[in-house]
């Protein structure tokens, strides 16, 4: 009963606090739009390749590249011939071209130039090299050992449908980002109770640590459900090709959010005021956004394998497994069974974190009655 009263009170405070709403919904929605602008490209992209071949010695190579197709029939490369090398270099700098294929006037060699910091260049150059090697092998009569075929990852996911754009892969990460913003939000909300002594008032009632923290968590979980629905809805409106169950996504989000709330409570127990809570909580959430892979895929640092699933170093955070589960649900249309392992890992970690948070908060913030 008391935890429901605390939950209602906390929810009213969140709803009436523009700063908190902005942190939990405004910021992730803004990042979602930025993600759309950055990653609204098809997964099976057609790469812009400019060709500088003044002696026309690489015609056969170019013809080979022109014939490269994805299984869907879409061309892998769009080739643009440019006789003026300076213009071709300029196109590269202006990102009109991803790769500049430069044929050696002496014949026999081509070079690939591009932005070494761009992952698109690496993807395109791998495909180019494979195609060129294939053509070279054929010319000298060497038998083909292997052929590189690029397919959408949906084809290997076991799902009937899958992500079609980069945005489809990254949009679920924005939900994780939003759910991780619950860390500073919870920390601010609770540290405010400490600073204004309303926590003392509640203790006089009296309220037990578990009742208080579960109450606050319930309010945050309501917000988390709203976050998942709102961001999924806006992402869909922006062109996200969602396939999975929204209910399953909400459940995954809630489980992940529990871990964020726990971290927020630990932060609140350790700081003196709202701004410290916002700073420390925000730093932790940003760190977790990175290690969870929500924004960028992190390198696999596998520690061991559990039930056939590799457990990486960053899997100690609920957000990492939570993101994978959420991405599977929303981008690949995964069901209960597909994400059961990741969901279970997220839940167990979140509960452990929450248990630690209750202990830390009780020790540092709740006075002994």
């Amino acid at each position, binding site marked *: 009963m008391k935890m429901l009263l605390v939950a209602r*009170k906390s929810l*009213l*405070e969140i709803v009436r606090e523009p700063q908190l709403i902005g942190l939990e919904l405004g910021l992730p929605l803004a990042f979602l739009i930025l993600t759309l602008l950055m990653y609204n490209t098809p997964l099976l992209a057609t790469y812009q390749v400019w060709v500088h071949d003044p002696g026309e010695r690489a015609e056969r190579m170019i013809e080979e590249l022109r014939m490269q197709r994805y299984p869907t029939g879409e061309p892998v490369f769009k080739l643009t011939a440019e006789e003026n090398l300076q213009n071709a270099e300029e196109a590269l700098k202006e990102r009109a071209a991803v790769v500049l294929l430069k044929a050696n006037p002496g014949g026999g060699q081509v070079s690939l130039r591009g932005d070494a910091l761009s992952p698109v260049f690496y993807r395109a150059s791998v495909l180019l090299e494979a195609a060129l090697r294939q053509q070279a092998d054929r010319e000298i009569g060497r038998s083909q050992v292997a052929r590189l075929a690029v397919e959408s990852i949906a084809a290997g996911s076991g799902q009937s449908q899958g992500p079609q754009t980069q945005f489809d892969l990254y949009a679920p990460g924005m939900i994780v980002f939003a759910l991780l913003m619950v860390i500073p939000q919870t920390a601010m909300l609770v540290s405010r109770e400490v600073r204004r002594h309303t926590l*003392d*008032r509640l203790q*006089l009632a009296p309220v037990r640590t578990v009742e208080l923290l579960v109450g606050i968590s319930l309010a945050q979980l309501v917000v988390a459900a709203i976050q998942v629905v709102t961001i999924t809805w806006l992402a869909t409106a922006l062109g996200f090709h969602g396939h999975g169950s929204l209910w399953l996504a909400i459940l995954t989000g809630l489980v992940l959010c529990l871990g964020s709330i726990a971290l927020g409570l630990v932060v609140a127990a350790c700081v003196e005021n709202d701004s410290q809570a916002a700073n420390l909580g925000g730093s932790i959430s940003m760190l977790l956004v990175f290690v969870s892979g929500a924004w960028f895929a992190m390198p696999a640092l596998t520690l061991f394998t559990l039930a056939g699933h590799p457990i990486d170093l960053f899997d100690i955070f609920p957000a990492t497994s939570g993101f994978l589960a959420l991405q599977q649900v929303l981008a690949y249309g995964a069901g209960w069974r597909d994400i059961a392992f990741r969901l279970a890992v997220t839940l167990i970690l979140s509960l452990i974190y929450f248990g630690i948070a209750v202990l830390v908060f009780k020790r540092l913030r709740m*006075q002994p*009655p």
Partner: protein
Amino acid sequence: MPDVVLRTQDLTKRFGDLVAVSDLSLEVYEGEVFGFLGPNGAGKTTSINMICGLIKPDAGSVWLLGQLLQGGDQGLRKNVGVCPQEIVLWERLTCLEQLIFMGQMYGLSASRASASARRLLEVLELTDKAKVQARKLSGGMQRRLNLAMALVHDPQIVVLDEPDAGLDPQSRVRVREYIHSLARVKTVILTTQNMDEAERLADRVGIIDHGKLLVLDTPQALKARLGEGDVLEVELTGEALDAGRLKASLQDQLGRREMQVGIDLQRHLVSVRGLNAISALAPIQAVIRENGMSVGEVRLRQNSLEDVFIHLTGRSMRE
């Protein structure tokens, strides 16, 4: 003999080397207004926090309604309502919302909490602000709401820690009237810096300083300890004040009258306490003139609790 509703026994609290409260033993009776006075940093709030269970004492015990207060005494602590010194409100909840919330947190049903909240808002003249968020209230209104929060669950014992601090005169009168109305209905423990308020409201007064309870009695009895009669205060004007010589002359003149003579150089004030103190005015004037000074304003007043307070705790500034 009325029932003892609160008893503390050798209550002690240290913060590092500082002994905030030392061996505090007192009893508070049912239905009385108990004034708990002391300068800033004397240990009042620490004592109250220990009594309420917000701070764990290093030693000693608290009995509430005859039962020893221990960890987890949720039922027992419901009998106490606390109005803290600071304004402790949820800024973004309306007056009504936070009163009902606290009422329910103390175990009242929603309807009882609502009825109690509305009654308190009416009594403390906040009805028209019922749906206004606390952050939008004036300081005086917030203070009154702070007081209402202590009472919403209808506790037997009400602890009011300087409830009149920072109030405008109108609000202070309203709060004083309300505290007065609580007397006999509830047991009130009142800490205040306002001696007039304490004298007017309290049945008994305890004065604490440096963590120790110095005296505990009725205001009348405490005033009587200073001496019977009135206080005559004579303001001095003029230069070349030799306090020692002046005091010796005054004592010489007034010694036979059994009066206490005091000289406050900082305030340029001679005070004489005793029966028929006004009769000493003429000799005092003569002595002052003999010492090369002249007489400014003259006041005659009764002994006050403030005299007792200053007598016990001194004039030096605290914190």
